[in-house]
């Protein structure tokens, strides 16, 4: 242990700690801006570039960045001297001197970390004026808007994109005052190898990175008398939406969310969970088919559009191993515009499918040309959890004051297996619950596969099914996915099935979720919420969903059959590596 003094208070901390960590132990707040420590997912931004967290260290010539200065025995630190405060104030003023200052109309107003800091330091004038760096706004992609005028060069997005996700799209170019973050080769985002996981947006402290909003489109659709607007909600949304209304992370607001969506004017409120059960029917069948017929193994899950685009770029020599199943919300769209439309006698072109997703890549996915039927996209609009909250606020709907309501039939019923799609490990666990019973013809007693749960980057389990040891691996975060896939490519791994989710933690940590502002516990609590929702469900295996059974009986026929293929499966595109 290292003994030191901060602001005249003594503290003992572990060797290797930073001054910031030591100060937090004493409950002394040191403001930070570029710093972000999500070490559970290996996202540690310790570039010490913003210099907001500088403190005085006795015997040191200049101020020390507390976020990255290791503690030393006998160190004497002052965090709130006039010298520190003036330095911080000046740094904030310098930031503001190069910032658009359109806070009133900014996308991140009241959610911006720079704005909060300026308020905390009571900045009332900006002494230094001068040139403001301006860059064209990149609106080329369907998911992410990059407005570098609002960038403060904290480099969190860069760390996330390169070190955690290993997508290697974002990096700083130019130097000095002209430095800014660009997509690789300074290309527009839509031409880059960006997979639109949105993790850069999730960690951006300002409005430099935001989502492409579909709110207006949704309002217009709701206002269009000729449209039947059906909405579906992804599993991870129900455990996070409450945060936007002051609730603790992980609070389950499923019933209130359904009620709120009805009040917004959606004609039908359905659940992506239903389609998740459908996905399991297809994927588990495909898995068993490959196991029995010597098909390509391992099978990779394909629910995550960020992951799909990632392997299309980075592992484009292995396009034959992912499952061909569409992602759940796309399956939902396909069923809504075929089975449901027929059943209700609505022309499919009059149905508008809106997805509420924790994800930015879903916005991109919805526009993929192959995810369509007869010239109609399976899904029309995608809004994020954050956008839904904004719509509710615009409509003056106070979520937490509503009484719980139920989803509509027939696409609203779901099992616990589908709920856990929202977290890392959940998809493969759901698939195993079904595959086990189908392969063994026995009832699975212990439905929870604890080896596949939790925050480890790569999780492994061997499941005994009949005489066979089925080897399973789970990865979340694309860096972990890359490791796993490289092992497979090099023949170092012999798994049967692999689940991959692009975002750390899975969909609960998606790029469209309420901002966690660097607190990993937010994501952990959402995970608890997901597993609780599963536990409380009467039905916990997808193949037990009565509406799914009915769907196959009435319309699809066999899982993995001809009709299912046409509506519920897709193919992949070989994309450039760089």
């Amino acid at each position: 242990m290292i003994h030191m003094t901060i602001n005249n208070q003594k503290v003992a901390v572990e060797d290797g700690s930073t001054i910031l960590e030591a100060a937090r132990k004493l409950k002394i707040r040191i403001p930070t801006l570029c710093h972000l420590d999500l070490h559970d997912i290996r996202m540690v931004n310790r570039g010490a570039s913003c210099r907001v967290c500088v403190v005085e260290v006795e015997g040191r010539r200049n101020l020390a960045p507390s976020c990255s200065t290791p503690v030393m025995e006998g160190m004497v630190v002052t965090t709130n001297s006039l010298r520190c405060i003036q330095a911080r104030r000046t740094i904030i003023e310098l930031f503001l001197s190069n910032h658009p200052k359109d806070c009133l109309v900014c996308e991140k107003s009241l959610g911006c970390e720079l704005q909060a800091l300026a308020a905390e330091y009571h900045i009332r004038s900006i002494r230094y004026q001068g040139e403001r760096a301006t860059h064209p706004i990149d609106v080329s992609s369907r998911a992410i808007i990059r407005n570098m005028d609002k960038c403060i060069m904290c480099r969190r997005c860069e760390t996330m994109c390169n070190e955690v996700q290993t997508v290697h799209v974002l990096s700083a170019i130019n130097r000095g005052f002209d430095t800014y973050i660009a997509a690789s080769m300074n290309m527009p985002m839509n031409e880059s190898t960006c997979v639109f996981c949105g993790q850069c947006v999730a960690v951006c402290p300002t409005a430099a990175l935001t989502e492409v909003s579909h709110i207006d489109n949704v309002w217009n659709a709701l206002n269009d008398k000729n449209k039947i607007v059906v909405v579906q909600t992804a599993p991870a949304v129900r455990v996070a939406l409450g945060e936007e209304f002051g609730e603790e992370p992980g609070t389950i607001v499923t019933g209130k969310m359904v009620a709120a969506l009805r009040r917004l004017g959606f004609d039908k409120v359905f659940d992506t969970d239903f389609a998740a059960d459908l996905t399991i029917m297809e994927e588990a069948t495909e898995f068993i088919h490959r196991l029995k017929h010597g098909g390509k193994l391992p099978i990779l899950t394909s629910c995550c559009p960020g992951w799909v685009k990632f392997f299309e770029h980075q592992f484009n020599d292995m396009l034959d191993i992912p499952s061909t199943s569409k992602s759940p919300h796309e399956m939902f769209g396909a069923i809504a515009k075929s089975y449901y439309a027929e059943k209700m006698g609505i022309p499919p072109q009059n149905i508008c499918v809106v997805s509420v997703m924790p994800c930015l890549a879903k916005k991109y996915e919805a526009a993929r040309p192959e995810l369509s039927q007869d010239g109609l996209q399976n899904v029309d609009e995608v809004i994020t959890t954050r956008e839904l909250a904004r719509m509710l606020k615009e409509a003056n709907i106070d979520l937490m004051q509503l009484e719980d309501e139920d989803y509509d039939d027939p696409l609203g019923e779901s099992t616990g297996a589908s709920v856990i799609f929202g977290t890392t490990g959940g998809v493969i666990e759901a698939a195993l619950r079904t595959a086990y019973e189908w392969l063994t013809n026995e009832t699975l007693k212990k439905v929870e596969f604890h080896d596949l749960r939790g925050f480890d980057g790569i999780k492994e389990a061997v499941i005994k099914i009949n005489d066979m040891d089925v080897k399973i691996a789970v990865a979340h975060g694309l860096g972990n996915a890359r490791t796993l896939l490289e092992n497979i490519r090099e023949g170092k791994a012999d798994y049967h099935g692999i689940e991959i989710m692009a975002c750390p933690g899975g969909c609960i940590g998606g790029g469209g979720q309420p901002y966690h502002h660097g607190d990993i516990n937010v994501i952990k609590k959402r995970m608890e919420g997901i597993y609780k929702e599963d536990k409380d469900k009467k039905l916990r295996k997808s193949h037990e969903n009565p509406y799914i059974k009915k769907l196959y009986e009435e319309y699809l026929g066999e899982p993995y059959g001809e009709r299912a293929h046409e509506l519920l499966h897709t193919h992949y595109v070989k994309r450039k590596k760089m």
Partner: protein
Amino acid sequence: MSNVRMHLLVCGGTGCTSSDSLKLLDHLNESIKQHGLSEEVEVVVTGCFGFCEKGPIIKVYPDGVFYVSVKPEDAEDIVTEHIIKGRQIDRLLFTDPHGKGKLEGQKDLPFYKKQIRIALRNCGFIDPENIHESLAADGYKALGKCLTELTPDEVIDTVVQSGLRGRGGGGFPTGLKWKYTRKSKSKEKYIICNADEGDPGAFMDRSILEGDPHSVLEAMAIAGYAIGAEHGYIYIRAEYPLAIHRLVVAIDQARELGLLGEDILGTGFNFDIELRYGAGAFVCGEETALIHSIEGDRGEPFTKPPFPAESGVWNQPTCVNNVETLANISPIFLKGADWFRSIGTEKSPGTKVFALAGKVNNVGLVEVPMGITLREVIFNIGGGIKNNKKFKAVQTGGPSGGCITEEYLDIPIDYETLGSIGSMMGSGGMIVMDEDNCMVDIAKFYLEFTVDESCGKCTPCRIGNKRMFEIMVNIAKGKGTEQDLSDLRELGEIIKDTSLCGLGQTAPNPVLSTMKYFQDEYRAHVIEKRCPAGVCQDLLIYHILPDKCVGCTACARVCPVPCISGEVKKVHEIDQELCIKCGACFAKCKFNAIEKR
């Protein structure tokens, strides 16, 4: 026995080659061939002699005659007169500006008299592309000694005892750096030679690499042996093609002789060196940024600790030494640490190479003992101020050093003293300014350089220095206020206090030091809207003197605006509102009737 009776040394440094020394070389070779002297005379291309002001330089052995400003046309005379007839060519000898006539030998020149050449010992003496000449000058002797007679700890002790300090600017004791790197436990360690010389005007590292590359390779091998590293990198900027070429040749030759590679001299010690090219970013001279650049990442510094000695390139313990520092290593082992300590001052032993530039008569590269005064360097070695102008200031330490005034000319040059008066040693740039230099303009120039060269990582350097520069531009335009002066001072101090790396921490120095020593000049710009040195264009006023103007209309005809009115043979007048201060009228007037204020 060889018939060679004469060696003709031709400077092949970058300075001399750019003033045609290669053409001179061709002419010499041709003439020697024509006169059938190829067997008797050997022409050798060497590295820089340092006296670049008077290049190209030829030195004739065995006489030791030193010719300056030699043109390709002079080749024939050198051959027919000097080589054949044994007659010195007076017109090519250096003329003593103090009237002592023609000076024949190199050591007679005032430029060389006070110099002690340790780092530059072989520059201008050997052929850098021939390892045998380096061997003849005791190259690799120190390495042989270290490998066979000394343990790594003894090697480090010798360097510690010598008191050698980093010549790249920081002045950190080299021996301690080696010691710390040796102490770090790891299988892989690295020694890096920092050859990313970036200070404007500084070229000592380039000259050493061009003139004596083996001295650096040898020192790296010694350092490798001392710290336990088998790999060395030389990080050199790609804009140094000649130095790169000479290094490539030297490394190949050293490998061929087994002085690099495996089992060096049968001692079991393995060491090899790779070159890494920098793209010319100034900040890559900062060791952590340099390490990033070697790894293929953007050249940005990172926070220390951890220091490279603990975790450097590829996260392994790494020792980064600059070229000049390394060039001092072998002599320390051959002549002893005590010998080294006997030169220079107690806290800063040895010599320092300076690139003398600016308004001084003898521009060039000089190696002087630490503790020498600025006055001796500028007035004795440098030969004083050009055109008998008045000395105003000298800027040391590169773009982020400070300006030193007349009153400090007699202080000894060493790390501490320069630091104590708001400047620094830096890598050894020394730029002399005279009464015609405007200090606001100078400070603005240096700040512009660091603003351009900032990596953009940390806020104070990226935005703060830019804001300081903008204020400086305003002051130079006559738009400055007294508030600007206090803002500059405050902002400058905070940038120094909060920037991430040495570049940002020192960038405000030129402004702060000139504000301190030339306050009146700043106030003249801000309050009187006047540039006393007549440099800041926007503050100049061109004015026609009625008693001198003859009304020739020449000024009015060259004025591009036009803002000069007046009838023929009558006094003209400049409309100050319209004048763009281009100075065309001033240059054109034959009657000195236009005054510049």
